[in-house]
């Protein structure tokens, strides 16, 4: 047995946009144990449910994350709508699905850029983020916002998007598709990139299930798990099938996200062609009384939204469990046996969002 040393990793580290701390117990150059610490930026957003009426709380929940804010808003609304037995108009469901999938494209492009940065490929990082700007422009055009949109509300959506604009979005996505393909081919085929990802941080299917991994982390290990299969939104109508890889390593986690970018573009195109005319929201009357658990497939994986009310305009409890929260234990498992030099890239492959986790 070699000499054991504990190396602190984070909470501030070039590869980490947000703070998480890991105590890495290493033997020579190999990680034998990793102990995580979070809580540096705990915001207590859930507690604001006592001061914000249930219809206003959606603005707070959207601010859980600046990347998947739309999905958080939808998840919260889905929980309250389930609790109040509200049936959302079909057109609103189509619009929600389109914005949610656009969020996935932007989130995965952002992550691909961060991943490129993590293994030192600066120009690749910049090109990924340049293409992501195109998606943010689409958000601005359809919602007025680039980060926080505030278009989701209990009972539907606040803004309609005319069919001509939707057609423009599809055209815009098709225009950048070739460029995205050119960039993502580098992650898939470039030898120097593959050296950093292939066979690194393997999480077997059994371990992924045992440690509760979610999202692209689980699907890269061959686990068929995607909350878009639960019948929410219009995914059934769009013929959605989850992207699954079997490798369980950093390469497979990258490949899942890349394939999901193109899949989301196809879903948006199909939704834009099939969106029916009609109302975008219904009036919601009364106050929430009861409880409901909604789940969303965020870009990083399954998220929970638990709403509990007792007939007042304020909910008694709003719980958000984000994907990173669930993937930290899986990360700890992946790190065991990893080379110290691979730790930054490995941490990044769960697409950690600590602000989400801290809520």
């Amino acid at each position, binding site marked *: 047995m070699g000499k054991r040393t504990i190396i602190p990793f984070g909470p501030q580290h070039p590869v980490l946009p947000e703070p998480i701390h890991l105590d890495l117990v290493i033997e020579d150059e190999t990680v034998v144990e990793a102990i995580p610490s979070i*809580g540096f930026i705990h915001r207590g957003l859930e507690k604001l449910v006592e001061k914000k009426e249930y219809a206003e709380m959606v603005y707070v929940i959207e601010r859980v994350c600046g990347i998947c804010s739309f999905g958080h808003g939808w998840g919260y609304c889905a929980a309250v709508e389930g609790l109040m037995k509200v049936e959302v108009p079909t057109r609103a469901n189509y619009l929600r699905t389109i914005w949610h999938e656009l969020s996935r494209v932007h989130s995965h492009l952002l992550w691909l850029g961060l991943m490129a940065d993590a293994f030192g490929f600066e120009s690749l990082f910049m090109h990924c983020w340049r293409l992501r700007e195109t998606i943010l422009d689409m958000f601005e055009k359809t919602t007025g916002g680039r980060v926080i949109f505030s278009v989701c509300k209990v009972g539907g959506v606040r803004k309609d998007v005319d069919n001509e604009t939707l057609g423009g979005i599809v055209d815009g996505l098709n225009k950048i598709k070739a460029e995205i393909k050119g960039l993502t081919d580098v992650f898939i085929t470039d030898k120097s990139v593959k050296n950093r990802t292939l066979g690194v941080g393997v999480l077997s299917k059994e371990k992924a299930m045992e440690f509760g991994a979610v999202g692209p982390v689980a699907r890269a290990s061959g686990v068929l798990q995607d*909350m878009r299969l*639960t019948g929410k939104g219009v995914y059934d109508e769009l013929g959605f099938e989850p992207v699954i890889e079997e490798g369980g390593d950093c390469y497979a986690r990258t490949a899942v996200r890349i394939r999901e970018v193109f899949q989301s573009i196809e879903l948006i195109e199909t939704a834009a062609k099939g969106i029916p005319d009609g109302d975008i929201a219904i009036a919601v009357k009364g106050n929430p009384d009861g409880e409901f658990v909604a*789940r969303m497939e965020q870009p990083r994986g399954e998220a929970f939204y638990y709403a509990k009310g007792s007939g007042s305009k304020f909910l008694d409890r709003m719980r958000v*469990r984000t994907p990173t929260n*669930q993937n930290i234990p899986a990360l700890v498992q992946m790190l065991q046996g990893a080379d110290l030099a691979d730790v930054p890239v490995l941490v990044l492959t769960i697409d950690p969002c600590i602000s989400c986790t801290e809520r």
Partner: protein
Amino acid sequence: MSEKKYLIQNFVPVTASELLGKVQDLKADGYRLGQACCTKLQEGLEIMYSFDKDHELLNLKLTVGEGQELESISNTIWHAFIYENEMHDLFGVKFNNSVLDYGGHFFKVAEPTPWNPNNEERKAEQNG
């Protein structure tokens, strides 16, 4: 078209003494722990463990009194330590035999159990 699985809720009440056995049964049956959380009630605390199997939810719910200690499920489901430490730091729920107990330092909170003002430890600290 698939059924609307997201509407299936399955809230199942359990007692503190039944919890561990029930969790072991669910794990053996292929269920995955999705989350656990605590809700402050007028009297005591409500704890919920959400499980998933084939995209269907099952929520175990139990009510515990202030100061009542619960057996940790982290020896059966390792990643439960994340949720148990969160419930301890924010609500003051005590879990026995946890695989990874941060001793109240999982979240860096300004005051003990900020979401449960009735917690005895918090009162004791405030009273000096």
